[in-house]
């Protein structure tokens, strides 16, 4: 990974601003500028997600890529936000505590770094909200 590849000014890395189609009411995260349902009839506006949701499915990753080796074992999940969209993220909890249906909330965390003294990437992880 490199700075250019994970350019740090992508706003959605740090906040949950997605979009909503006012024609059909669907929410999108990451943002889509074209509604797959309404296509050209869709009207897209920004939407700030509250970020709360629940775990749809999860795993405990024990063999990771070099960037994430230090974190193993870590809980990784698909989360369904209350507005509908699903995202993939790490869950900040013990592997024994994660379960399907668990309520979670977003937390701002360090995600990875370019080696020991390289650039640090930040982003959203999730924590239990129960």
């Amino acid at each position, binding site marked *: 990974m490199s700075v250019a590849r*994970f350019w740090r000014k*992508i706003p959605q*890395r740090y906040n949950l601003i997605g979009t909503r189609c006012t024609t059909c009411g669907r929410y999108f995260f*990451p943002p889509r500028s074209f509604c797959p349902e309404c296509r050209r009839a869709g009207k897209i506006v920004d939407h700030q997600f509250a970020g709360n949701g629940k775990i*749809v*499915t*999860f*795993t*405990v*990753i*024990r*063999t*990771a*890529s*070099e*960037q*994430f*080796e230090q*974190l193993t074992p*870590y809980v*990784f*999940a*698909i*989360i369904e936000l209350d507005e509908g969209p*699903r*995202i*993939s*993220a*790490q869950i900040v909890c013990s*592997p024994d505590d994660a379960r*399907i249906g668990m309520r979670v909330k977003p937390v701002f965390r360090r*995600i*990875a770094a370019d080696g020991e003294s390289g650039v640090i*990437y930040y*982003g959203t*992880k999730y924590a239990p909200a129960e």
Partner: protein
Amino acid sequence: MRDVAVIGAGCTTFGEKWDTSFRNLFVEAGALALEDAGLAGEQIDALYVGNMSAGRFIEQEHIGALIADYAGLASHHVPATRVEAACASGGLSFRQAVIAVASGLEDIVVAAGVEKMTDVGTGASVDALAGAADREWEGFAGATFPGLYAMIARDYMHRYPLTREQLALVAVKNHYNGARNPIAQFQQEISLETVLKSSLVADPLRLFDCSPITDGAAAVVVAPLDRAREFTDTPIRVLASAQASDTITLHDRRDISTLDATVAAGQRAFRMAGLSPSDIDMVEVHDCFTIAEICAIEDLGFCRKGEAGRITEEGVTALNGDLPVNTSGGLKACGHPVGATGIKQVYEITQQLRGEAGRRQITGAQIGMTHNVGGTGATVAVHILGV
């Protein structure tokens, strides 16, 4: 559209091939396929090569020209095209060759696949493979490929009756078949305990639920059916070639445990061939993880959702069962050089249909299917072959 046939097939042995290079792997497979078809290199009209990530694994791009050159075809200026769709690169390479011949544009076309994965360490290869998923919205957050399939397994086991033992039996069966395949990376049978006691990679998947990191190459030659007998006494007909796509991320799928692209490609293939699942004598499915074989059997229509674990346990998918699945040993035991896998599947079905599959031969095999998946199901290629 013209009918198309496979007139030659070749495959290297699969494994950790420290002593050979990417280009030599391809040349070996290509030479075997040409020899099988009784062809000389200059008779080739076009060349397609499936390759996922030479840029990451050996820091080489421009693969089409490279392999045409080292196949000795530079002075013939053969059109050579790299096809990429992650782990489905091989299946799409074959489909491109079939389309080229079916259209009438080309006559003799080589479809190959190659991957050299062991020139980087495990961490680097795990990272390269994660590029088959959504780098920005899955990989960046820490997803690994086993992790994504583990989330499919967790969802599946939460909703359907699949036991941990049934899942492990997929690996046991595929190793049994691999032990009968001279090109397989792992030619050893394994016990249920071996799978269940292997280390966790991404819960609930263990090491023996996962396909390995592999070097290898495979190549087949296709031609118009009406010219096939110029080259071989046993042409294998391409009865259907289908492809489908779906969301790149797993989390955006309609259903985590159903690969809708498999469903779509399977239905298109059956429609094109005018066949149904009960007509298929054996199938090579994309078992990059044990759970992937479970989903594939169901999504292709061989049984209802939730039944694949039971029919695996009952031996239906075994070498001597009603529907042998992954007679080659699958990705699990034969190995998974990602770009080569889709072509190796065609190679295996070709061998079976010619009656040349040795100790793993399915008696009287007439029709076989291949199923090749890219990523967690964002691309699927399905082919039906028959004698």
